[in-house]
C-alpha cells in the first residue's frame, strides 16, 4: 500500500517566519501535487511536480520533488496570515482516472 507521510501535522508561526512542510513515502509516484484547503472549502491545487529533482516556485512558495520521486517539500518564505490553511500533498498513483493518495495534511496558522 502506498502511503504518504506528511510532517509536521500542525505548525503555528509568526508572520515573517519561514517554514518547510515535508511529504515522504517509500513508494515512487509518477507525480505529486500540493493542495491548499481553507476552512469551509474544498482543496485547491497549488502545483504539480512531475520530474525528479524538479523545483517550482509560486510567489513565496517553493515546491521540490525528490530525485527519486518518493518525497517532496513545500517551503514558504516570509509567511503571511493569508497563508493560513491546511496544506495537503497528494501522490498520483497509476494512470487510471488519476487517483490520488493524500498525506495527512499540515495545519498552518500564521499569526500577525
Amino acid at each position, binding site marked *: 500500500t502506498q502511503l504518504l507521510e506528511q510532517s509536521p501535522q500542525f505548525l503555528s508561526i509568526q508572520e515573517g517566519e519561514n517554514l518547510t512542510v515535508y511529504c515522504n513515502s517509500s513508494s515512487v509516484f509518477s507525480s505529486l*501535487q500540493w493542495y491548499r484547503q481553507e476552512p*469551509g*472549502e474544498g482543496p485547491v491545487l497549488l502545483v504539480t511536480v512531475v520530474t525528479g529533482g524538479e523545483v517550482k516556485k509560486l510567489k513565496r512558495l517553493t515546491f521540490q520533488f525528490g530525485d527519486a520521486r518518493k518525497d517532496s517539500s513545500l517551503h514558504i518564505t516570509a509567511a503571511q496570515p493569508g497563508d493560513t490553511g491546511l496544506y495537503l500533498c497528494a501522490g498520483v498513483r497509476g494512470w*487510471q*482516472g*488519476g*487517483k490520488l493518495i493524500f*498525506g*495527512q495534511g499540515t495545519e498552518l496558522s500564521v499569526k500577525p
Partner: protein
Amino acid sequence: DVKVTQSSRYLVKRTGEKVFLECVQDMDHENMFWYRQDPGLGLRLIYFSYDVKMKEKGDIPEGYSVSREKKERFSLILESASTNQTSMYLCASSGQGLAGANEQFFGPGTRLTVL
C-alpha cells in the same frame, strides 16, 4: 468558472437512515471521486468513477455505495448510516490527461453528522 457543487453543506441524520449525497460538476469531466476527510487522516478515497455507470472501490468503500447515471452527477449513498460515518465528505472531478497528473477540482464539502 469551473464548478463542483454538493447538495448540502451540513446534514444531520439518525443512525440507520439512508443518506444520499449528491455531487454535480459542470466541466464535462470523465472522472469523479468521493472522499471523506477526518482530522489527522487526510482525504481517504471511498469510490471513484471514470465513466458513466462505471465505478470502482477506493480505500474505504465499506458501508457506502455510489451511482453515476449521468456524466455530470455522482451520488454517494449511505445505506444505513452509522455514527462512525460522521465526517466531512468531499466530491471531486478531473479530466483525462497525461500520466494521470490531473488536477482534481473539489466541491465545498458536506459535513455529515450521524446521531
